[in-house]
């Protein structure tokens, strides 16, 4: 009996409904749904119960099509009639029924279902009712907007940064920060090797390492100096890649993969030392290689390539 929950006015019942209060279905529905929140409207006093008897059957039919919300009692025709009538009677004061108190309680029940069932409401609800679970407070709306903007920008940032596949916002932001740091470091390193800094850099190396890294013939000397550097770098690499890079660049060295180092050194001068692990190569064009053995063969930073940093 109460199956349909759609707005399907039936023409058959409209002439019957016309008798109590000259209106037709569409008008009636329109009036119902344009009226502001249901609860206030339901507070209206029940209309006089004049000719309810004549309406029973017709109204039952019409009301079936009008009812929008799940009614608490479907089995009792009178109850459902009252519910429908209370729903329909609000702007028009249709005769409620003999049980005044009963209709009141049921109207309250309808009111509660109205407010509770947000999912059942039609689209033409007044705009006062916001989305479920969110307030219409202007602060929270602004807050929501702001969050959306931030999320949007984070997405565009994500595409820029390599390794941008993290879903977590915090880790993504950490990646971004590290990338910015890395780029700034690259600029610094590159500016060091620029413009005839090569000669000064190589002289710096010879001063610092206590034995020239260029043109050295004795592998023994080389290895002690190399070992010191190696230990230092390995220690630094464990904590922070950036500081390791800075240490190396202070010495005028950079890390690069073995294959590249072997290619470069074979192009310039014959290799002197066996390659174990990564090789540290001075930035000056006079290449002589020093080997740094570390277990972290996967971490590489090269100055010459495009920024491709893979963190251990």
């Amino acid at each position, binding site marked *: 009996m109460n199956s349909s929950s759609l707005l399907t006015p039936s023409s058959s019942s409209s002439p019957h409904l016309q008798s109590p209060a000259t209106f037709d279905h569409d008008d009636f529905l329109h009036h119902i749904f344009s009226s502001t929140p249901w609860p206030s409207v339901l507070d209206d006093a029940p209309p006089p119960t004049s000719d309810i008897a004549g309406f029973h059957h017709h109204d039952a039919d019409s009301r079936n099509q009008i009812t929008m919300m799940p009614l608490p009692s479907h089995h009792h025709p009178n109850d459902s009639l009252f519910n429908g009538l209370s729903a329909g009677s609000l702007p028009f004061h249709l005769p409620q029924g003999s049980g005044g108190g009963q209709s009141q309680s049921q109207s309250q029940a309808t009111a509660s279902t109205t407010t509770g069932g947000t999912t059942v409401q039609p689209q033409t609800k007044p705009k006062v009712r916001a989305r479920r679970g969110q307030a219409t407070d202007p602060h929270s709306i602004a807050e929501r907007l702001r969050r959306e903007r931030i999320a949007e920008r984070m997405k565009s940032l994500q595409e820029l940064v390599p390794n941008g596949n993290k879903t977590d*916002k915090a880790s993504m932001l950490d990646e971004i920060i590290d990338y910015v740091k890395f780029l700034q470091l*690259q600029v610094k390193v590159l500016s060091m090797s620029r413009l005839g800094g090569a000669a000064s850099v190589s002289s710096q190396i010879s001063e610092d390492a206590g034995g020239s890294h260029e043109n050295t013939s004795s592998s023994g000397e080389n290895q002690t100096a190399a070992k010191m550097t190696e230990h230092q770098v390995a220690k630094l690499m464990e904590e922070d890649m950036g500081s390791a890079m800075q240490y190396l660049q202070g010495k005028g060295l950079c890390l690069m993969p073995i294959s590249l180092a072997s290619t470069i050194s074979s192009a310039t001068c014959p290799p002197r030392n066996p390659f174990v692990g990564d090789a540290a190569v001075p930035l000056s064009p006079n290449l002589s290689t020093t080997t740094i053995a570390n277990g972290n063969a996967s971490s590489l930073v090269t100055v010459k390539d*495009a920024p491709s940093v893979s963190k251990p």
Partner: protein
Amino acid sequence: MASANKTINTDVPAKDIFALHFLQSLSNLRIQNPLNSPEETTDRVKKIKMAAYISMARAAGGTNRLWSRALLRRASKENNKINRFSRRKRKVTWQISSERRGRRSSNRRAPVVEEVAERLRNFVPGGGGMETSKLMEETAHYIKCLSMQVKVMQCLVDGLSPK
């Protein structure tokens, strides 16, 4: 409303413009300081680095971007030009507005994002006076410009280093 903001303008000019500005600044440096002795290398390195950043800022759109403005301001401050007032004012207004906001809506800002945004502000120049969404936009542009500058410098190094 989100769709209106979809096309955030973070375009950077082509590599040539960056290269042009950088080379100009380098030649200026060379004119000013002839080849130094090794003891002043660090000073020279700093100058080159500063030249790189300044040329990047100029190439990237001059004063259209907040970070470039801050970079240029910082550089001119080091060159004994007094232009501090606007920066200080901006910092003050930011703090005031955050206070006001804080009173109204204490827990509204996502604390995790804000904390990371603080760290980001330390790296991106001019980040002290920006709100988080603006900061991210600036960061995106800054990252693009930085990577462009790095590419230019790498090409120079590769091209000019003797075989």
